[in-house]
């Protein structure tokens, strides 16, 4: 507990530092220090510290640390999953995309959304019935523990770290703009808060921070939407008429555009977003925080409802901003309507909140955006820490002989290490175009995690050799395709032409992963492969009935 206090003090000191640095930085940063936002954010942080303290008292065992003791209800977990899914990138990036490109943003949102029903129908039940802490529990259920777990942990970490860097860099830039804080101070603040939540409060604190933030985000987004729509008498017809009249795309505003230049990109994007969701470690982990398959199903129902609702709100926000923000010289640099937005393209929804609700609402939404980043990075850090401590340390290195205490200790150390890595890489990548990192995270999730996971749940014939070839083949091909595509080969490395013509890897990388897993399994005639297939029957009954799964029906002896 002393350590927590020291950290809290350090944190307060660093916030004070940031305040002091505020006026000095005003010259280089466009936005002045936003006291409304800082006040509301400080309030949020103090509440989450209270929760973390409360959670730390209840976090003793690995079961507490990784899955909050398995006692989260379906409704709470639904909010938390929705919270994990509605990152700052969603709020700011998708509203900006709707503002700039119109209908493309809505297509993108459907692709993000449509993974949920599939996860529910084909995966939720089996995930909950077979898994305990990480999705590697399922892929390695009847396969070789050491090698399959190592593979799953590596691809989880690849996804977590790419996603984390993208969130950190986005966070730094955002906070610089919204709060008027220095980039490095912002990155440190996010890193420290994330480590405090996860290391002390484990999944309990991470989940509640996520729930509170999801409620704030849903409330804030809805409020701005209602205020903005009231200017159009809540009429979609009136809104769209004005949007098409003033936007540079005109009547093409509601047409699919440049985002999906060709059929292959369109289908590949659909595949990557849909099945990428089903392979994100921090989302999969949430299925183990509820008591049984029944609550797991309810979680998806609520999560799906909240995200679907919120995507529609965001799209309307983008449309309203076209008329309300896009016509107001106050929000453009030098007062030139149609020029550069103050603070850059991602500030659309922030300007809209100021236009319809003044500085108070702007401050509130800015604080919510900051809270969103914190909650999402905390979930990511926990998933990464679990891959290190549960999969690699406890199962591969210690072969299951580690005590509860040791395992929790290692996961706390892993959390601190991940926090450090996130801060260092967040600063290192500050000036780079990091958009590709989210693509990479989804690409690896869709091409490495998802194929092996779904095969391990549905296909008796999967063997260790097949899982390893499929998993590593998926990681390597997804990363290679992204590196050779325009977003890295041209935009980051600086070559003239991309070697791989598409920006979305899923349509190529997923078949490679599935194909390798299949070929290497059916040609595997080893004795161990036979033994693995023999274990299928019991796994199958457990997957179907939930009998013997953690936290549900107890075996009667």
């Amino acid at each position: 507990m002393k350590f927590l206090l020291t950290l809290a003090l350090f944190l307060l000191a660093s916030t004070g530092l940031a305040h002091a640095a505020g006026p000095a930085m005003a010259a280089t940063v466009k936005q002045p220090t936003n006291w409304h936002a800082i006040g509301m954010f400080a309030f949020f942080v103090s509440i989450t510290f209270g929760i973390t303290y409360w959670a730390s008292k209840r976090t003793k065992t690995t079961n507490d640390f990784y899955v909050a003791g398995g006692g989260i209800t379906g409704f709470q977990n639904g909010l938390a999953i929705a919270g994990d899914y509605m990152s700052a990138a969603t709020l700011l990036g998708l509203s900006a995309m709707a503002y700039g490109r119109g209908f493309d943003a809505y297509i993108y949102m459907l692709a993000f959304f449509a993974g949920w029903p599939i996860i529910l129908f084909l995966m939720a039940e089996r995930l909950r019935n077979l898994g305990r802490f990480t999705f590697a529990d399922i892929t390695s259920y009847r396969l070789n523990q050491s090698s399959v777990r190592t593979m799953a942990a590596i691809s989880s970490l690849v996804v977590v770290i790419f996603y984390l860097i993208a969130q950190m860099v986005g966070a730094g830039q955002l906070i610089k703009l919204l709060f008027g804080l220095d980039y490095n101070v912002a990155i440190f603040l996010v890193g420290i808060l994330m480590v405090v939540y996860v290391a002390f409060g484990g999944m309990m604190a991470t989940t509640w921070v996520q729930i509170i933030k999801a409620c704030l985000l849903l409330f804030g987004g809805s409020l701005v939407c209602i205020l903005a729509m009231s200017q159009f008498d809540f009429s979609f017809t009136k809104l769209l008429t004005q949007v098409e009249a003033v936007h540079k795309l005109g009547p093409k505003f509601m047409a699919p555009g440049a985002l999906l230049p060709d059929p292959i990109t369109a289908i590949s994007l659909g595949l990557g977003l849909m099945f990428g969701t089903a392979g994100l470690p921090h989302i999969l982990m949430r299925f183990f925080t509820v008591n049984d398959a029944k609550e797991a199903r309810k979680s998806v129902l609520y999560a799906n409802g909240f995200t679907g609702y919120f995507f529609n709100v965001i799209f309307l926000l983008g449309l309203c901003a076209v008329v309300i923000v896009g016509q107001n010289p106050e929000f453009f640099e030098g007062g030139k309507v149609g020029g550069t937005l103050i603070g850059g393209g991602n500030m659309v929804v922030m300007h809209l909140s100021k236009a319809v609700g003044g500085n108070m609402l702007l401050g509130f939404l800015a604080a919510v955006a900051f809270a969103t980043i914190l909650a999402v990075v905390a979930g990511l850090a926990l998933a990464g820490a679990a891959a290190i401590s549960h999969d690699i340390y406890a199962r591969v290195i210690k072969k299951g002989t580690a005590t509860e205490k040791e395992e929790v200790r290692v996961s706390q150390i892993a959390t601190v290490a991940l926090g450090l890595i996130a801060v260092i890489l967040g600063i290192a990548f500050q000036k780079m175009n990091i958009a590709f990192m989210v693509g990479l995270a989804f690409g690896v999730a869709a091409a490495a995690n998802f194929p092996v996971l779904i095969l391990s749940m549905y296909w008796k014939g999967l063997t260790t050799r097949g899982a390893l070839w499929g998993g590593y083949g998926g990681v390597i091909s997804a990363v290679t395709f992204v590196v050779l595509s325009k977003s890295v080969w041209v935009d980051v490395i600086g070559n003239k032409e991309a070697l791989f013509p598409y920006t979305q890897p899923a349509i190529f990388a997923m078949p490679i992963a599935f194909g390798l897993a299949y070929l290497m399994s059916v040609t595997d005639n080893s004795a161990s492969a036979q033994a693995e297939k023999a274990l299928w029957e019991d796994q199958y009954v457990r997957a179907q009935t939930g009998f013997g799964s953690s936290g549900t029906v107890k075996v009667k002896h």
Partner: protein
Amino acid sequence: MSSEMYERMRSNPKFQKLVQVRGRFQWTLSIIVLVMFYGYFLVVAFAPGVLVKKITEGSMWPIGYTVELFLFIFFWLTTLYYVIRSNSEFDEMRADLINDAQMMEGK
């Protein structure tokens, strides 16, 4: 031994029935969602011009937006239907099955 329990459940005809009925239900809903989603994406990819037309003459509602809004709602309704049926009918079958196996163990 839980392995014996699994064996008992597997040989129970109720298990075969649960797996069959629920499996068909899960795959039917999945295929409906996948066909609608990728069907829509094929229209986006090959005939984007259709989506920008208005639903009726004089209306401001484009076909694309209207269809997609419907998909958002429809997909959510499929999850609602799935959860209602799974949490009642299938969970009862499942509990019944486990009960049977435990009764046999007691004998």
